[in-house]
């Protein structure tokens, strides 16, 4: 199976650059977490990959073929986006049938099983569905349609905790039965941290991190202790943020620690979770562009 290769991809809306010279390879059979603050360009990147909008420059290629108006490429991709592109008067069952007809491959047993588990009434018209159930409809399609690349843009929008758990469980089941690539863009980082194999961070128009989750987490540290000892220990390291409570200070470091520097008895070092790491990595950025 081939990877998606994104080369020198840039996108501007008028004078506003959203993506600048993105170079990225999305590998087959991998679960990605795409992280970025609001307005970072995550949806724009997804929209370009699925040919909903054109890139300003650069290209998206699968199997040596460009994605623009190329059914062979587009038919291997499903994007579950925040926007609702299904006809509002269409019934849920008809949306499933239409997807099966146009993609040509869809696990209808899984569709019915998940519809039942989520409590989705397939006789309802799309316009009558709540925000949560619209998301559920698209999630079910994303899990049941037989494509090589599924992009979930804010998949849990409007879903309660029970439905989110059900979705994560169904995703892992589906992945185990038919391994394929899932790229999940979400702000609920802690909920997906255990399932993503690779982490992509989109920041200041660029992909700043593209590594396995394990490597990323291994590079994140919290250094806790008295302010003077902590600042002395982290001097010269890549400190991405800090918390302060009285004289107690926590410095967050991304990257290698100085192995030759002795660790004071008053200082403790531990790894930090993905959400904390992301928040500190991107806290300096002020996103101004919303798409």
């Amino acid at each position, binding site marked *: 199976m081939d990877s998606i290769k994104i080369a020198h991809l840039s996108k501007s809306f008028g004078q506003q650059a959203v993506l600048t010279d993105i170079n990225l390879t999305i590998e087959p059979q991998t679960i990605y977490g795409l992280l970025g603050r609001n307005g970072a360009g995550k949806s724009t990147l997804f*929209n370009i990959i*699925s*040919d*909903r*909008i*054109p890139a300003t420059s650069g290209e998206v290629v699968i199997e040596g073929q460009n994605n*623009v*108006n*190329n*059914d062979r490429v*587009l*038919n*291997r*991709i*499903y*994007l579950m986006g925040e*926007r609702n*592109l*299904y*006809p509002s008067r269409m019934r849920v069952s008809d949306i499933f049938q*239409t*997807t099966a*007809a*146009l*993609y*040509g491959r869809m696990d209808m047993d899984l569709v019915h099983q998940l519809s039942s588990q989520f409590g989705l009434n397939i006789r309802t018209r799309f316009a009558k569905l709540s925000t949560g159930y619209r998301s559920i409809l698209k999630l079910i399609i994303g899990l049941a349609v037989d*494509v090589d690349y599924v992009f979930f843009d804010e998949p849990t929008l409007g879903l309660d905790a029970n439905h989110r758990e059900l979705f994560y469980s169904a995703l892992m089941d589906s992945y185990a039965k038919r391994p394929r690539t899932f790229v999940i863009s979400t702000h609920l980082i802690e909920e997906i941290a255990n399932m993503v194999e690779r982490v992509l961070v989109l920041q200041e128009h660029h992909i700043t991190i593209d590594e396995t989750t394990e490597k990323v987490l291994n590079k994140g540290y919290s250094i806790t202790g008295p302010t003077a000892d902590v600042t002395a220990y982290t001097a010269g390291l890549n400190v991405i943020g800090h918390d302060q409570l009285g004289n107690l200070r926590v410095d967050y470091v991304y990257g290698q620690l100085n192995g030759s520097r002795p660790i004071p008895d008053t200082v403790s070092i531990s790894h930090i979770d993905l959400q904390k790491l992301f928040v500190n990595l991107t806290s300096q950025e002020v996103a101004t562009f919303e*798409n």
Partner: protein
Amino acid sequence: MKTKAAFSYQFKNYLRLFGWTYLWAIVLVVFLPLLIALILGQIHGFSVADYLPRVLPAIVVGSFVFAFGGITYDGFKLFIQNGIGRKTYFYSKLLALSSILLIGELINVVYGVLYTHFISNRRAAIFAFSSLYGKYFNSKVENTISVIVITLLFIVCIMVTGMLLGTILGLFSRRAQMMLIVGAPILLIILLAVLMSVNTQNRLISTWLPQFLLYIIGMSDMSTPQGHFIAFAPMISGSVYIIIVLVTTYYLTLRLRVPR
């Protein structure tokens, strides 16, 4: 390309909608007057021919291909969501609508034959264009074929015009669409008023424009008798118009995007 799957989906969808359009047209044009006549107690004077227009199938097929040809953006959204690109969307829509057009025209011919023989005692021509081009050739077969071709081309012109307008609207936001829908007819009326005023002042009739218009419809001069207009002229001008509009629509379709 996924043209077969896309065409199959579009064709089935259009066929269902075409059936509904026919049903509504029959209800509105035939049964509603019948019901009113029944309520008013005038049923004894009710003649089917009075309420069954000869042009009913032509109106149904013409308005259907124009309206559904014009609904572009919703179809594009659904197709791009389902992994089908703009080119396939354009071709499948064109093929599906053309198939409906052929079915509609077939119904029109059958209805025309039945109408002239069984419904109305007025011996009207089966095709509307017969009165203009039905006597151009010496052979009856040639005349019939040419009128069928002209009729088909005319409805295709209506269809591609709908497709072009729909695609243009699909490029704009809802707000801009409303402005265009409201503003364009107003601009046209103003333009028409200006042209009429120019006509009064400068005798527009003597310029090349009316001559050109007469030429493209096959009326070489004003004295051409009814039924003897040049049949090749609308075939050529219609074909040229269709090609230009389709090529323009195709390239505009490639510019559709979500979000707009």
